[in-house]
């Protein structure tokens, strides 16, 4: 307890509310409110309707939702595979090699994602790799961007792993592959799960690289929100945004349930 007087506490709490509510809670509430409205010219939205959701869950927007889900799923699986493989490999390396690998895999975080998009576009629009205009270029860019986060969280978990388990298994005659499958990976499962959730959420909301790359027949949700609001249909846009937030939250919730079940084993 830093502040003991009742008056001081209440002053601080009021200050906190005054700062916190308009800045953080209001934006989300406003988007939800706007998604049910047809008109917002006064202090509050007017013309309550479900029409925005009807249009947000059919046709182009529905396709955008499935596009986003598929992209995020494939990209996170790829990122998880590559990221945890690299993290496991890095752990076995010498200190210098590990630092090199760390730098290499964390680099996509530092490079602006617009630039990642541009670089991928430049590289895969020319032979020998022609991916421009296909859905794979979007998935590839997402995978590049989220791999860093998978690598980071898995390698943080490996460091905390108790080496006694694998040493015990190895001393009992288990081959390295067996140790990996039956000892290391199960122990890493909670953090793999967390990494999967993180990658999925990031990929669902990725806009910058996607704007550079998306082909007309593979338009993810964030781009859809942008085109809707850019055309002036703000209310449809916010309904799509609520769908995006809801889908992300549902997946995160599902992932965290798996995690708690895994940690009881």
């Amino acid at each position, binding site marked *: 307890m830093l502040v003991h007087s009742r008056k001081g506490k209440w002053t601080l709490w009021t200050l*906190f509310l005054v700062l916190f509510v308009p800045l953080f809670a209001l*934006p989300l509430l406003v988007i939800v409110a706007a998604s049910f409205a047809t008109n917002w010219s006064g202090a509050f*939205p007017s013309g309550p309707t479900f029409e925005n959701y009807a249009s947000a869950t059919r046709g182009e927007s529905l396709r955008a939702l499935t596009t986003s889900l598929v992209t995020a799923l494939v990209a996170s699986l790829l990122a998880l595979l590559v990221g945890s493989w690299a993290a496991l490999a890095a752990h076995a390396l010498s200190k210098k090699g590990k630092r090199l690998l760390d730098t290499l*895999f*964390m680099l996509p975080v530092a490079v602006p994602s617009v630039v990642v998009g*541009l670089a991928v576009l430049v590289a895969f629009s020319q032979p020998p790799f022609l991916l421009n205009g296909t859905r794979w270029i979007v998935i590839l860019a997402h995978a590049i961007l989220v791999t860093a986060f998978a690598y980071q969280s898995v390698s943080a978990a490996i460091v905390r792993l108790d080496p006694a388990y694998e040493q015990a298994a190895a001393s009992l005659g288990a081959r390295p592959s067996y140790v990996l499958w039956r000892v290391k990976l199960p122990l890493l499962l909670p953090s793999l799960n967390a990494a999967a959730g993180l990658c999925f959420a990031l990929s669902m909301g990725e806009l910058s690289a996607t*704007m550079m790359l998306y082909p007309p027949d593979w338009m993810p949700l964030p781009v859809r*929100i942008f085109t809707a609001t850019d055309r002036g249909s703000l209310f449809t*846009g916010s309904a799509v945004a609520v769908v995006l937030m809801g889908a992300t939250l549902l997946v995160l919730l599902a992932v965290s349930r798996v995690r708690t079940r895994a940690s009881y084993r």
Partner: protein
Amino acid sequence: MPPVLGLALVFLYPLVLLVQQSFTPLEGGTSVQPYVDVFADPAFREALGTTVWLAVGATVGCLVLGFVLALVIAFVPFPGAKAVARFVDVFLSFPSFLITLALLFVYGTVGMANGMWTDVTGAASGPFQFLTTPWGVLLAEITYFTPFVMRPLLAAFSQIDTAQIEAASSLGAKAPRIVRQIILPEALPALAAGGSLVLIMCLNEFGIVLFTGAKGVTTLPMLVYSKAILESDWTAACVVAVVNVVISVSLYGLYRVVSRRVGA
């Protein structure tokens, strides 16, 4: 080492091509002419300036705001403070452009704040017209990135020994002094790490600027996008991209050094 090869193929190889493209003017050949052209372009200089001051401003704002909010959550807890901390985590998983979208409804020309103003005063239009100026972008960036400062701070605060604070306050130290002499030194590493992370992310931010839709606000990532997609000027886009990468990656190197030194 298949993962390294894979990453090199899909990430490093494109980056190399990007740099190569930036040295290739339309007429072919290799020269530094594209760089000379781009650096002479006033639009580029303006974008560079805007990017840097927006990023620095937003970082300072995030640090101050994040410190105050985290302080209240950690040391003057109220019922529901845990839920607020959870909410901050959830906030991080949402894309940044949602904030700008929300601000359109709050401070936009026909939004909540202006609507209230016109209802109360009867004026034709409200006083809040800053959304399409850099200030709108600044507000959105501060809102979105403050949680990135709050999270490491909350983690650092939970490590502080409360006995120190109790001892100091029983010896008569007032709250501001405790904050300055006990909490701030402990929080400094987390502040440095969080601040430099936010600085990089602000430099690279694209969604917020794109959604603002302001012609007057052009940052480097926005310039890359408009050169490449809207003007199809690949070489210039690559030049701007290389400049942006150099700034961000060198800052990122600094961030790694700082965070390694403080062990955060």
